[in-house]
């Protein structure tokens, strides 16, 4: 290319014109990027790379307690450290931008170790030379279908709300599915220009069991011929969505005059596609023909998919390919067809990240030495665009989107996440109590709530870093980002799967981390822990003076409110199983209790520890599960470690239990104020199994009300919280500060 020296400027310039976001906000963390993969389809390019992110984390460190400390010295030290974590970046853009994008990447690519770029998709051949020339990387082609399946396995395993059912006329078009813990076997129907039907039985085992030549290419090609226009695929879909197929198709009622009752075929059923167009003396509109064609092809694919699903006895059928790719029109017609042919036995499932599967798969093939499948990954809500509704009526969001870039970022989680072994039915477990995607009133309320709370969060974030002058500026960026996310979720509640209070909280945590506010509450937590510790022995002593019955009540109240407020003094509570719990306590002790703890300070020190102490006294082992990373004022595993040591130093009961491993601390694997029992640290799961855990205690609003309120466990469980939100309390039939004390015993087999 002549005049290449000016290429950089020209590239950036043309990108500025065509891309709504500055390129460094799209191709993030390029400096450390390695292991590139690219999937070039008919109209969209998907780029994938692995990068490391350096960000700040709050660490706590115990002081040396051998030295006698003066009153007023802090309990432990908080330091902000740099930590490096792995992140996967996926970016989707129109093929038209390939060249400018490659230029940008080339200019920012520092890592010289990278030699190869994995490539897949039909366009990989076409752009091979361009990529090799621009990036100086060798293009290594990978088989399209194996990439697709590798990518599909990856998203199904790592993104909880990946799959959804599409319902055109429902309040929420997208109904997200809980992923079955065992994702195999499933059927993947990929509708590209033709159709491939693939049965996937395990990570490496899959087979193309069938296919059809009538696919997206048929719709496009035949559609272009029939409408005699030079149309794009999307335009053809748009035409179809405006048409009436009944003027072109021969329906059952055109032949019978009504329904064909004895066979249960309704009059509106299509008997013969294009059956009415076999005439020379009639003109048909483009829209009507396109609609008829769309029905014909969708029904045909649906029918074949059902035949194959039945033959192989599979009921999970995922649809993908450019024919589907988020188009409500085709998702609707395919869903309709599947319902018709299976009478509802099989549901058509679609994937939120369907467009990325090939790129993810190609990337994974190139990254095998990093063993990406050994880790659990989590979608980063701050860095991911989320699902857009690509309505054919081109809503404003969609219009704004064409010419922009879509992103997906996945964080490598430090721990492998698995199901809690004590879930009654892991495949039907839904963590969240309320689905805000479906409940418009609740959605309105919570979005408003989080928006209102934003000022406070920003202030707290700034206050947590008093020594850093640019904190205010970063906090402002955080505010903009989170507010924008809330705006997006208002328009597209389905953007990151089902919208829940948990996802709103998690999105906020992700955004805070993004702008290096790893733990805004660290100082507050420190202070509160410090104060509470001073009262520990006093509280324990006063509890010991009570009668057994009185003490049990005081312990429960302590859990609910840390004994400070008058909450919970008056019974009956909103949900009150206290009597059953006391009866149970009169019986044999539990073998082992798993306790998911909540807040720092009074809650953990004056509420949880005395309660734990009582359990230990009964001969019950206790496993305390706390967050791996910070979230609000929840106690983290690091903090709890120090607190336990300090309490052990004061209290011989805790001391001996801790020493003898009758009291154990584990990480939950989460950094959320809520709790997803299907994604917990593997170590926790092992400990729970080994110790024959027969009691699970979950405390606090986030873990016991917003999530897990309806969770069914295979052992006894206690869920307790004070509802500190009047709207939610009313929803549950109570008032603010109502108490929930749920004690559940699973049905005996």
């Amino acid at each position, binding site marked *: 290319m002549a005049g290449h020296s000016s290429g950089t400027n020209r590239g950036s310039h043309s990108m500025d014109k065509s891309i709504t976001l500055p390129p460094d906000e799209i191709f993030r963390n390029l400096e450390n990027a390695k292991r590139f993969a690219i999937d070039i389809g008919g109209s969209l390019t998907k780029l994938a790379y692995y990068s490391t992110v350096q960000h700040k984390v709050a660490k706590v460190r115990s002081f040396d307690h051998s030295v006698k400390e003066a009153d007023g010295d802090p309990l432990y030290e908080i330091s902000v450290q740099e930590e490096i974590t792995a992140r996967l970046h996926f970016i989707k853009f129109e093929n038209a931008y390939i060249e400018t994008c490659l230029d940008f990447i080339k200019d920012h690519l520092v890592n010289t170790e990278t030699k190869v770029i994995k490539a897949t998709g*039909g366009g990989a051949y076409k752009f091979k030379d361009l990529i090799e020339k621009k990036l100086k990387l060798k293009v290594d082609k990978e*088989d399209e*279908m*194996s990439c697709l399946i590798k990518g599909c396995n990856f998203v199904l395993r790592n993104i909880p709300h990946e799959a959804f059912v599409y319902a055109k006329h429902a309040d929420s078009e997208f109904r997200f599915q809980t992923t079955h813990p065992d994702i195999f076997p499933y059927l993947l129907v990929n509708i*590209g*220009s*033709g159709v*491939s039907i693939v049965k996937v039985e395990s990570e490496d085992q899959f087979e*193309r069991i*069938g296919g*059809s*030549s*009538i*696919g*997206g*290419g*048929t719709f*496009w*090609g*035949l559609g*272009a*011929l*029939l409408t005699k226009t*030079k149309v794009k695929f999307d335009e053809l879909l748009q035409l179809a969505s405006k048409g009436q197929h009944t003027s*072109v*198709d*021969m329906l*059952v009622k*055109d*032949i*019978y*005059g*009504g329904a*064909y009752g*004895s*066979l249960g075929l309704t009059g509106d059923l*299509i*008997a*013969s*596609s*294009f*059956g*009415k*167009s*076999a*005439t*020379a003396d009639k003109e*048909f509109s483009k829209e009507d*023909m396109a609609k008829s064609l769309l029905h*014909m092809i969708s*029904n*045909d694919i649906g*029918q*074949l998919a059902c*035949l*194959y699903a*039945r*033959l192989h006895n599979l009921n999970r059928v995922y649809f993908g390919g450019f024919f589907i790719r988020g188009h409500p029109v085709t998702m609707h017609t395919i869903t309709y067809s599947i319902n018709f*042919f299976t009478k509802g036995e099989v549901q058509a499932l679609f994937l939120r990240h369907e467009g990325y599967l090939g790129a993810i798969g190609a990337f994974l093939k190139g990254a095998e030495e990093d063993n990406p499948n050994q880790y659990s990954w989590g979608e980063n809500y701050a860095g991911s665009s989320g699902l857009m509704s690509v309505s054919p009526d081109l809503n404003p969001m969609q219009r704004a989107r064409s010419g922009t870039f879509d992103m997906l970022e996945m964080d490598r989680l430090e721990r492998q996440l698995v199901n809690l072994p004590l879930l009654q039915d892991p495949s039907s477990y839904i963590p969240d109590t309320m689905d805000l995607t479906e409940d418009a009133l609740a959605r309105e309320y919570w979005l408003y709530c989080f928006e209102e709370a934003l000022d406070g969060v920003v202030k707290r974030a700034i206050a947590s870093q008093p020594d850093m002058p640019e904190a205010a500026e970063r906090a402002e960026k955080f505010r903009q980002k989170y507010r924008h996310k809330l705006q997006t979720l208002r328009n597209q509640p389905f953007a990151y799967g089902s919208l829940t209070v948990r996802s709103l909280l998690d999105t906020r945590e992700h955004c805070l981390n993004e702008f290096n506010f790893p733990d805004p509450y660290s100082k507050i937590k420190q202070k509160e822990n410090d104060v509470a510790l001073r009262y520990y022995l006093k509280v324990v002593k006063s509890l010991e003076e009570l009668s057994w019955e009185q003490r049990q009540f005081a312990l429960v109240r302590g859990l609910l409110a840390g004994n400070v407020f008058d909450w919970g003094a008056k019974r009956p509570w909103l949900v009150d199983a206290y009597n059953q719990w006391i009866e149970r306590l009169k019986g044999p002790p539990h073998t082992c209790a798993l306790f998911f703890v909540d807040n720092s300070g009074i809650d953990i020190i004056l509420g949880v520890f005395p309660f734990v102490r009582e359990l230990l006294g009964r001969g019950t082992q206790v496993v305390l599960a706390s967050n791996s990373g910070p979230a609000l004022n929840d106690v983290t595993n690091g903090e709890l470690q120090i607190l336990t040591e300090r309490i052990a130093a004061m209290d011989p009961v805790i001391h001996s239990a801790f020493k003898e491993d009758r009291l154990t601390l584990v990480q939950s694997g989460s950094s959320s104020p809520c709790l997803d029992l299907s994604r917990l640290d593997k170590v926790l799961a092992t400990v729970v199994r080994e110790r024959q855990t027969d009691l699970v205690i979950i405390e606090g609003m986030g873990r016991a009300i917003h999530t897990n309120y309806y969770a069914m466990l295979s052992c006894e469980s206690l869920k307790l919280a004070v509802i500190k939100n009047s709207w939610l309390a009313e929803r549950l039939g109570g008032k603010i500060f109502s108490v929930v004390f749920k004690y559940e015993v699973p049905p005996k087999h």
Partner: protein
Amino acid sequence: ILLKSFPWFGMDIGGTLVKLVYFEPKDITAEEEQEEVENLKSIRRYLTSNTAYGKTGIRDVHLELRNLTICGRTGNLHFIRFPTQAMHRFIQMGRDKNFSSLHTTLCATGGGAYKFENDFRTMADLELLKLDELDCLIHGLLYVDSVGFNGHPECYYFENPSDTQNCVKKPCCLDNPFPMLLVNIGSGVSILAVYSKDNYKRVTGTSLGGGTFLGLCCLLTGCETFEEALEMASKGDSTNVDKLVKDIYGGDYERFGLQGSAVASSFGHMMSKDKRESISKEDLARATLVTITNNIGSIARMCAVNEKIERVVFVGNFLRINTVSTKLLAYAMDFWSKGQLRALFLEHEGYFGAVGAFLELLKSSEEP
């Protein structure tokens, strides 16, 4: 036996075509002839002395079953068809010929028996005996197969279906026909699993049938009739229209055992404007025919496997004068099942419903 009075008809009113069978008694005695009313005689003469009726009615002379003995009478069975669009003219003719005075029962099947029932009543004072089309189809098929085709077998198949050079039509017997998968390709397609004369179920159906082929061909090429469409298709080349596996992968797609010559995307080349401008009407007609036929083959094969039936019998007027499709179906069954499935065809492809309705007339005559 109490014999049903003449004329003996059976009618199948489909979405596109009306199929009519007429029994012409050849053993009429002089006495009978004298008693025969004038309009009955004129109907017989009109039907048997012509091979075309009006603009669109046609008698398939080559299908005529001769010297058939049925219910004690001997005669010839004639096969006549006309477009369903001409139904009202047909009813008018019935009125003009004063058909209602003959006191015969008009046995009719197909959707049109329901749709036009009221028109028969009000326009021609005729009551239809409506019969289920799938019952009629199976009864008619079994009957014609049992009487044979004027001394020859009714049924045939293709030997060496996977070898275009040596693929030949061979007659065969359907002595033990059950279970069979019966694929009836009319305007749309119905697929039945038949276990005995009266034990069958409709497995599925598809709206991509003969009506789709003709409808699309009319839109794409401006042709007007099935014959015209087939004529064009016989001269065309579908590989100019369809995208083959080799067009995408440069050869076979070995990972999945797909041959380079397999169609990857029907009409796939037509996504490109240049290609759209370079193809002929004949190519388009051929591609339409191949697409529809392959799709029916594919669904039929899946049903056969799901229902565990090895014999697949294809009938319906889509197969009339359509060797491209019959050979393609024979090939598809053989190739994709690795020789496990056999495609069978019948000479009277589209007339079995009408024959079934005709048989029902005689059956009702046995029960006074």
